């Protein structure tokens, strides 16, 4: 599945789009990402799925698009 990466988090991932193995839910997705990029463990960010910020454990489908959103700094 696809994970979009924005802002300062691209300094950690080195890319603004990641292809990762399918994950059944957001918990497992985050585990996988933190294993691959340990610096995410201490980074501040929100997880969005299909443009909605996710606060609770949420099931994912293979065509979900996840996004890692560091603190916003527009304006």
């Amino acid at each position, binding site marked *: 599945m696809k994970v979009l990466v924005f802002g300062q988090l691209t300094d950690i991932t080195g890319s603004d789009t990641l292809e990762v193995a399918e994950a059944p839910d957001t918990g497992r997705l985050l585990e996988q990402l933190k294993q691959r990029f340990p610096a995410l463990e201490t980074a501040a960010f929100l997880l*969005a799925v299909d443009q909605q910020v996710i606060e609770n454990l949420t099931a994912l489908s293979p065509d979900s698009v996840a996004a890692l*959103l*560091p603190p*916003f*700094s527009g*304006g």
Partner: protein
Amino acid sequence: MKKKRNLFVQGPIASAFIGERIHQHQSRTEIGAHSIFLGQVRSDRVGDRAVRAIAYTAYEEMAEEKMHEIREAAFATYHLTCMHVYHSLGVVPAGEICLFVFTSAPHRKAAIAACEEIVERIKAELPVWGKELLEGDEYQWKINS
């Protein structure tokens, strides 16, 4: 159907464009007040280097969706005639304008309060990021206060 609102503008927002947008609202004679907020790229010092520009990126689809939500809430809360928001993407040099919020209403209190609230929500809720480009080739990520 949701109207596409052209939230994002490539590069700086020209002052002449702002003048034109004001002009376009002068046929609406039920308007008594306009409130405008402009964000301008500030050349802060970072150590011994100055910010020479900010490069903006956004999660565009999500930002447009969120802006739509902010717009609906503003019209539901305040008696507004019009509301327009433009945000830059890409590189905006110091001294240039990167955000233009424009509210119009029959009476001043609605225009002023809505404009302020929209600016605060944009800063806090729009998925947009600023990368401050310093003199030399360094950068730092902008932090909103």
